[in-house]
């Protein structure tokens, strides 16, 4: 515990040998100051914004190494949502009465499957993202909060390509486009914010507990069935249950996509609930992440 003091301010003796003036740094120019307060958090957010270019590079790196950026690679990603859509469609048609058959249900399921695939893949990816970038984390500093975002961005690239097959189905099923399609960017952004919010705590816990992804994958699947993805919100008879489901953040997303693409309706209040939930999770999840982030290097 004993601190041995320096003998004297030694650096004084090498003064003034050149006349070159030193650059004076601004007082505002603190890059680092240890602290946990609100100010530190806002500093962190500013830094995050300044370094946002990294997200594209990190996400692009993963896309490149996974698929070599070709269209076949993306088609491969589509395989699962497409096959699952087929399975669910057949299953639902068997289970429900024949006179209720509605071919557009196929499109309804497909949209939900694509959105869910984006969500689940990014969330599960975010749990491993810290460990996957271990060598970066122990060697260079960058705001680690960018890492979960890379997963969401990577998924967004997939999802964007996935949406391209939707017009094909729209043509086959004779679903015309409408102005409601313009809501898509809003819904996509909402889903993005929501995912980021959830992925922050998950990426911390995923580092602490190595078998968490398996557990979360099952929970997500359960959540999917509890959300109006394979069925519509309107199909639920109980009004109370319907109100309750409005507070499920996934409801807003699935209903929103379905409204924009299929039923030509603008998103309802459930999307606002999703956004509120997402913003809340992003702020508090992000704050939690910044508190845990300094210890990542030690845990790896």
């Amino acid at each position, binding site marked *: 515990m004993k*601190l041995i003091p*320096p003998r004297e301010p030694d650096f004084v003796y090498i003064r003034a040998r*050149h006349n070159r003036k*030193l650059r004076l740094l601004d007082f505002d120019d603190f*890059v680092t100051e240890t602290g946990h307060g609100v100010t530190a958090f806002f500093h962190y957010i500013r830094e995050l914004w300044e370094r946002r*270019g990294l997200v594209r590079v990190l996400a692009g790196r993963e896309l490149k190494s996974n698929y070599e950026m070709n269209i076949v690679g993306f088609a491969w990603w589509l395989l699962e949502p497409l096959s699952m859509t087929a399975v669910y469609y057949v299953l639902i048609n068997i289970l429900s009465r024949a006179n209720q058959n509605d071919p557009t249900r196929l499109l309804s399921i497909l949209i939900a499957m694509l959105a869910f695939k984006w969500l689940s893949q990014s969330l599960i990816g975010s749990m491993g993202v810290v460990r996957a970038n271990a060598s970066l984390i122990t060697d260079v500093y960058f705001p680690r909060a960018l890492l979960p975002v890379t997963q969401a961005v990577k998924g967004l690239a997939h999802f964007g390509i996935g949406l391209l097959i939707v017009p094909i189905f729209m043509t086959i099923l004779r679903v015309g486009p409408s102005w409601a399609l313009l809501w898509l960017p809003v819904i996509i952004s909402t889903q993005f914010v929501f995912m980021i919010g959830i992925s922050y705590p998950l990426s911390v816990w995923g580092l602490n507990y190595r078998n968490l992804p398996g557990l979360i994958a099952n929970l997500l699947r359960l959540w999917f069935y509890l959300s109006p993805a394979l069925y519509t919100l309107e199909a639920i008879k109980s009004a109370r249950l319907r109100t309750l489901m409005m507070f499920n953040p996934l409801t807003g997303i699935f209903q929103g996509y379905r409204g924009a693409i299929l039923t030509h309706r603008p998103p309802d209040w459930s999307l606002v609930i999703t956004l509120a939930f997402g913003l809340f999770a992003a702020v508090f999840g992000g704050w939690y992440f910044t508190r845990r982030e300094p*210890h990542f290097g030690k845990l790896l």
Partner: protein
Amino acid sequence: MSQPAIRVRNLGLRFFIRSHQSAPTVHAGVVKFIKHRPAPKEFWALRNVSFDVPQGSVMGIIGANGSGKSTLLRVLARIYAPDEGTLKIRGKISSLITLGAGFQPNLSGMENIHYNGLLLGLTRQQIQEKLDSIVEFADLGDFINAPVRTYSSGMRARLGFSVAVHVDPEVLVVDEVLVVGDAKFRQKCADKMKELFMRGTTVAMVQHNMEAILTMCHQCMWLDKGTVREIGRPYDVVKDYLEAQGLPMIEAKGGLQAMDIPSFESAGTSGDAGFVAPL
């Protein structure tokens, strides 16, 4: 007037020595929660470390292996956050801890410059501006367009060094990475470092080469088992350090006078530099 570029007070960093090898599982966590197992043993890699590095000066850090030198650099480079104490760094910081951190083996040298530069905190535009200079400094010839996996370790280090020194940091943290490449490149590195020092860059560097400490540093710190054993003039500290090891003092050719040292007005810091007692 002149503020210290690096100010460290009572810094402590602890590691937990975990009995298991990899991260625990969820069920293990639940069991642990129920059973209330004792907290893992902690190990303080750094404790009560306090020092100032005035703007534009070079601080050499010496010490035996495992004394916490590299850990300290990692704390300065913000890779670890201190568990106690405070740390203030003024200015843009860059670290030369591992060269070519995060190089992508499948991308070409050119692409890796972009990637690595962004990681180290350059903007896209800055990288474009400095690209020629980086390529020229690395001096890899046509290999710059070949994938990095085809590089030798020396070439990789050259590219990494080249990108890192082009970050133009105000504070630079250097682990013993200057010993890369062949004699010619080493000389080039030394020249580049000297240029950075001249520009008023504040440097904290770990060195095992005592001669380099004597010739390049303004201050020297001797770390021992995670605490500061001595801070002072390089000559004194190196002498004590070598004495403690039973080694004779080495003669440095030229000493500080051999090198151009930036003008350096840190007299004002003497008031600040009073070391605070550990809480």
